[in-house]
């Protein structure tokens, strides 16, 4: 990729605080050229903050950075890019109305005398697509793409800049299993060709498999840096949370015999979704698997009435929904944790408390007024039970770390105490400990009789949580597998290869 050799990076005494709250403290870190450096830690540990400082997105309050022993000042993203550092940020940094092509080469367009040469860019993109194995239509607006594909666009952009250092903030969080593998392979190839990679991820196995060394952050402090070969997931978790915890998947309680069907859908169709039938019983967790773009998200949205199906019915407790709107679904006891917390889930500039309370406002009012003490109690309790770490529930939710935002989104829907919970990517961007908490939460809810439909690109998680897994391909169910099926079988089905498995 790069012609210049990647530099060695030395971070010394870097610190950062927001309105008096320290989020990074005295960080010393050395990264060797061509190294893959893993960065792990709980939600809110300060990983993104550190990356943003390296990428020039924010300025550190204290400390210095040097490249190849030479101290540099990075005051802006321009400076960082100038030094060959490219940041793929957690929140995503695409320009919605521009095409894939324009986003990949953002501010680096090929041009002749100022006139953009789309042809040259197209050629460059074709090359990049070949190296990465991604496939994206260069001409569509990026905001029409699923987030998985958007993530690929961001990766392509970092590569297009020929960066010598690429800092990736949870790049795999939104990718499906096989895409993750692709990306990890890509990272290895890049490292082999001399690019330095800093990788933030909550998938410890993944970090262990690809990183040369791993740094653990906790509460803004650097706990330890060491070779990946000398540690284990268990040890890492220990460092991250400061105590031993159990990160095994909980087993869902078996669905009681004769448990009634709560949610049923027949012949759902719209756009990509081409005839989905499903049934979920009380106490059951139905997993939906599939490749990116297989229509999993679309299906959940149709179940919730977020989009109006062109054909088919959704029934709750045997009664068809009165209309295909979120309101009707909610009235019938359905809740949905959407895929993208930024676009569909949260009102970013409002407070944590307001966001959590939003979908259940009517439950706590006297006349037109919000019962504020009741709200405070309810929000406080639910926040505790999903473990939202916010300094202040009144601060804007955009100041929370990604994982904590996800937990707030979860809390918002649990406050409604729904009968049916539809979850799209339940643990996207959530740290290991919290992930386990969410898994326990989901199985616990099912054990209490809730019907759960869960979409996850993390196949292990999906198989561990679900009583049953439905595989979608091109918007159509292509198989249903009972608990205990191996990941290989499900992935094969998702790819359209049925030879390995049996439909139950």
């Amino acid at each position, binding site marked *: 990729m790069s012609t210049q050799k990647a530099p060695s990076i030395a971070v010394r005494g870097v610190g950062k605080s927001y309105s008096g709250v320290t989020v990074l403290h005295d960080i010393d870190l050395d990264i060797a050229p061509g190294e893959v450096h893993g960065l792990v830690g709980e939600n809110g540990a300060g990983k993104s903050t550190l990356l943003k400082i390296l990428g020039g997105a924010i300025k550190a309050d204290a400390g210095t950075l040097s490249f190849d022993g030479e101290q540099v000042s990075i005051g802006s993203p321009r400076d960082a890019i100038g030094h060959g550092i490219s940041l793929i940020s957690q929140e995503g940094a695409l320009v919605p109305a521009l095409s894939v092509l324009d986003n990949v080469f953002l501010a680096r367009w090929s041009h002749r005398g100022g006139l953009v040469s789309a042809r040259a860019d197209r050629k460059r993109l074709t090359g990049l697509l070949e190296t990465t194995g991604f496939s994206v239509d260069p001409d569509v607006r990026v905001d029409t793409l699923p987030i998985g594909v958007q993530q690929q666009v961001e990766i392509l952009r970092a590569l297009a800049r020929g960066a010598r250092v690429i800092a990736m903030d949870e790049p795999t969080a939104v990718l499906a299993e096989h895409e993750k593998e692709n990306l990890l392979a890509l990272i290895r190839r890049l490292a082999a060709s001399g690019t330095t990679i800093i990788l933030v991820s909550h998938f410890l196995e993944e970090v262990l498999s690809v990183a040369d060394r791993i740094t653990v952050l906790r509460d803004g402090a650097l706990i330890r840096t060491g070779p990946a070969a000398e540690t284990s997931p268990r040890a890492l978790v220990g460092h991250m949370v400061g105590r031993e915890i159990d990160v095994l998947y909980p087993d869902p309680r078996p669905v009681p015999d004769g448990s009634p069907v709560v949610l049923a859908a027949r012949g759902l169709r719209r756009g990509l979704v081409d005839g989905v039938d499903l049934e979920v019983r009380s106490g059951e967790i139905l997993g939906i698997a599939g490749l990116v773009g297989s229509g999993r998200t679309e299906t959940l949205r149709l179940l919730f009435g977020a989009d109006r199906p062109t054909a088919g019915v959704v029934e709750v407790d045997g009664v068809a929904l009165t209309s295909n709107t979120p309101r009707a679904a909610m009235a019938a006891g359905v809740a949905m944790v959407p895929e993208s917390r930024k676009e569909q889930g949260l009102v970013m500039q409002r407070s944590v408390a307001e966001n959590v309370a*939003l979908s259940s406002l009517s439950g706590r009012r006297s006349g*037109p*007024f919000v019962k504020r003490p009741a709200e405070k109690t309810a929000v406080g309790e639910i926040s505790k039970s999903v473990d939202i770490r916010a300094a202040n*529930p009144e601060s804007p939710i955009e100041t929370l770390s990604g994982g904590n935002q996800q937990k707030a989104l979860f809390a*918002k829907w649990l406050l409604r105490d729904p009968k049916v919970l539809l979850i799209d990517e339940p643990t996207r961007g959530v740290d290991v400990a919290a992930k386990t908490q969410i898994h326990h939460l989901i199985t616990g809810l099912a054990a209490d009789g809730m019907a759960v439909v869960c979409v996850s690109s993390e196949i292990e998680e999906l198989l561990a949580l679900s009583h049953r897994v439905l595989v979608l391909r091109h918007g159509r169910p292509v198989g249903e597998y009972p608990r205990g099926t191996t990941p290989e079988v499900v992935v094969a089905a998702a790819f359209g290869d049925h030879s390995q498995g049996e439909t139950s």
Partner: protein
Amino acid sequence: MSVDTTPQAPATPSPAAANNMSRLAFRMRDYGIVAALVIIVIALSLSTDTFLTSGNLVNLLDQTAVLGLLATGATICIISGVFDLTASATLALSAIVGVQVGRVTDVYVGFAAAVLAGALLGFITGTVVVRSGVNSFVGTLATSLVYRGLAVMVTGGAIVYPLTQYAESFGVLTWPSLFGLTSATIMFVVVVAVLAVIVSRTTFGRRLYAVGGNAEAARLSGIRVGSIHVTAFMISGVCSALAGLILASRAGSAQSTMATGMELTAIAAAVVGGTSILGGEGAVWRAIVGALLLTLIGNGFNLLGWDTIYQQVLQGLLILFAVTMDRWLRKRTR
């Protein structure tokens, strides 16, 4: 008027001292524009001996009433993510309706009819914007042309008056009342206080912010985005109608060109107060601060008797000063 939700004690008992510090900074930051207002008030009190007289303060509030009402309506719409450029046309049309209905019935019935007309026009504006799916800026712009046109058609381009026997009681809003304030001021304060409570304390208020902050997230949370917008337009319509009644009551008549262009001054007041035009943020008290600031600057110049040739320049600079100060206080503590 009431002030926005004060943050309560933290739910998590974490680092308390740092927390309180940041809480204080957080509050300060939100009141930068108030500080700017206070600075200007102090400057005026020191440099004139007429500014801090009760007579002038009564005037000041009276002068703020119309703009304050419109700015409140504008703020509520902006919080919910829409602009209402029909405000001044709605003002004219409802005032005309008020006068005309008053002619055949009674002044107070006329007033009530004007308010109803304002609500109805707001409902129509909202429905047009929501149904057509057109951006509210251009949707309400077109609608405002229609309303102004209707006002011309209803009046035939002339001025309409209450019947002579009602002419005096029609001026009721200009009469002095409680604490020597004019009735218009009293009405303004009461209406704005009620709206401030609605916006900051009710479930509707919460929904307003959610819709303006992220309409899709709000919709997926079961909020009827369309009806929240329609309601915001209706509130704005009522505010416009009340402002129209104040103007009509002062003039003793109504006409189709009333308050032309004032919808923009209202939006300006809202934004000067610190409400973000991007939606999802802002507060009713900010509308009032913005309206007061704009009125104050004019009032100050008049009292100081400075050459009007420099007024505009200084006015512009003062507004820039106020909003920049607000902005910097906010940024520093971010």
